[in-house]
């Protein structure tokens, strides 16, 4: 277990180095000169001398690898630069907004599981019944539905027409409902099908027949014997999906004016606030990699075959 963890962490080092390199190079994609951008962010057209002086100060005239080394050193020490717009450190800005994003992503995951678990289990048990067909239709629509459109439709229905839920901003639980549903719906539909396939697979196994032959109550057969096996593939996918949630959160946060990192990133893009954009990419990647690490570890804990050192 510890060895596995160490191996995973060691493997992450080159990956994260690559991530940092890509993030660093990102700024070079931007049209125009970074020094000029910084000076122009004040709103005044800078002189050539001022730009040149700042270039020298920032080390922009040095070779690229030297710049990268310096940048990486600072990033590793928690200095991710300052926002052009607010002047505050990027790390602070991101960290202060991250709880809102996390809250939303977790709520969406919760909603997703609440919908997908019963739907997946029931459509496996009542295969080819109306519920199964309904969930298949839902999955097809869920995979085809633009999230931003679903969000607007939900706003129209529940906030404009029925006036039961608030539209904008973060607050109590009622503020969380629409964004979480918007974010989680597509995934819920897909996960219901994944779980259904897993359940059908498990239910066809010999150990289910044995469990029934032992005279176990059906809810033990389903809940203990089939579900635990069917959930294993779901757990591996959860990490990946959480990444998609963190990516998809950008649009949902924008629609619902949710004060998270996604909305902040979009605002920064339109303000050409490059340090924030850079920091956002790096930050999301770190979060994603950590989430996947946790998911992998929990998978190891759930599956004794891996935990006790057999199989892959």
């Amino acid at each position, binding site marked *: 277990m510890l060895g596995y963890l160490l191996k995973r962490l060691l493997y992450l080092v080159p990956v994260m180095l690559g991530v940092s390199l890509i993030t660093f190079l990102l700024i070079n994609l931007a049209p125009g000169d970074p020094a000029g951008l910084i000076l122009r962010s004040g709103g005044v057209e800078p002189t050539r001398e001022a730009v040149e002086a700042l270039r020298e100060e920032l080390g922009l005239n040095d070779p690229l690898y030297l710049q990268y080394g310096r940048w990486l050193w600072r990033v590793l020490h928690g200095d991710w630069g300052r926002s052009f717009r607010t002047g505050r450190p990027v790390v602070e800005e991101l960290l202060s907004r991250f709880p809102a994003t996390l809250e939303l992503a977790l709520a969406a995951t919760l909603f997703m599981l609440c919908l997908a678990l019963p739907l997946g289990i029931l459509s496996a048990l009542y295969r080819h019944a109306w519920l199964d067909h309904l969930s298949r239709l839902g999955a097809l629509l869920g995979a085809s539905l633009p999230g931003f459109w679903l969000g607007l439709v939900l706003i129209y229905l529940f906030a404009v027409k029925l006036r039961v839920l608030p539209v904008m901003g973060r607050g109590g639980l009622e503020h969380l409902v629409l964004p979480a549903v918007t974010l989680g719906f597509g995934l819920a539909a897909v996960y219901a099908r994944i779980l259904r396939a897993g359940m059908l697979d498990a239910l066809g196994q*010999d*150990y289910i*027949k044995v469990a029934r032959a032992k*005279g*176990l*109550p059906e809810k033990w057969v389903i809940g203990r*014997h089939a579900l635990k*096996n069917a959930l294993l593939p779901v757990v591996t996918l959860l990490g990946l999906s959480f990444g998609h949630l963190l990516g998809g959160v950008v649009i949902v946060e924008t629609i619902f004016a949710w004060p998270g990192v996604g909305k902040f990133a979009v605002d920064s893009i339109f303000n050409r606030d490059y340090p924030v954009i850079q920091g956002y990419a790096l930050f999301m990647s770190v979060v994603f990699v950590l989430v996947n690490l946790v998911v992998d570890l929990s998978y190891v804990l759930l599956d*004794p075959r891996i935990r006790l050192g057999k199989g892959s």
Partner: protein
Amino acid sequence: MATPVLRVKNLSTYFHTSQGVVRAVEQVSFSLAPGKTLCLVGESGCGKSVTALSLLRLVEPPGKIVSGEVWLNGRDLLKLASSELRRVRGKEVALVFQDSLTSLNPVLTVGLQLAETVVAHEGLPWKEARRRAAELLYRLGLPEPERLMRSYPFQLSGGMRQRVSLAMALLLRPRVLVADEPTTALDVTVQAQILAELKRLQRELGMALLLITHDLGVVAAMADEVAVMYAGSIVECGPVTEVFERPAHPYTRALLRSVPRPGEELVPIEGQPPSLLGLPDDRCPFLPRCPEAREECRKRRPELLKVAPGQLVACHYPYMARDEG
């Protein structure tokens, strides 16, 4: 013969597939006396396993039990409400399957899988149930029961797993044990050990055993009675001594000849086992492979009839040892 503990009458189980109806079990009848062993033998795919599953109504769609009676203790299991059937499964009639790797749940500990049976049937607290399970493992002579209880199936050897499966079935002292090829996947030495243990436990518990196998050596070692299945039906049955000494059905004779024995020529059975799909009803199912087929065999399916005390054969021209004599 004592009053049978299990009596099966005209059991038929069909599989309704897209290609047509597969008659996996056709009009099977047999009975099982307490403390005795009945061996069900036949080639793979002849319907032995489906027969075992049908007894406890464990056949899954597209399979369906279409007719028959399974009498246990004055009750027809095929007509029992599912809640009552659940109380019979595992407690009065227990099942052991062939492959213990797939028949034990890979993500649950051995202890849990043993104890849950006790909890389900007797409502004991988990701790008590685990103690009972450990006790049985100890009595079965398994080393370190406590450690065994904590392990997962993949950590055990094949023989150990099969012993666990056996323990799981015997935990509640069932009156009838149905064992479907319990030793087929094992090494010969382990196989012999497990069969010996099974025999000892059967004597201790006074349990009736329905042993399904394709191995005639196992039959000779274990059986009191034997029933030979071919293409979903029993073609010959009777006391093992009678059937082995004086096999009356051409298939039984061929089966016995196909077992290697020192000093004797090995004669394989001609042809392939029949497809159970769309098997014609109006002739003997063994016809295509029978060396002694005659006109009558093409016209009518033979019924199971008595040829000697206790010995029944489904053949128009049963082979009689005394005919030759």
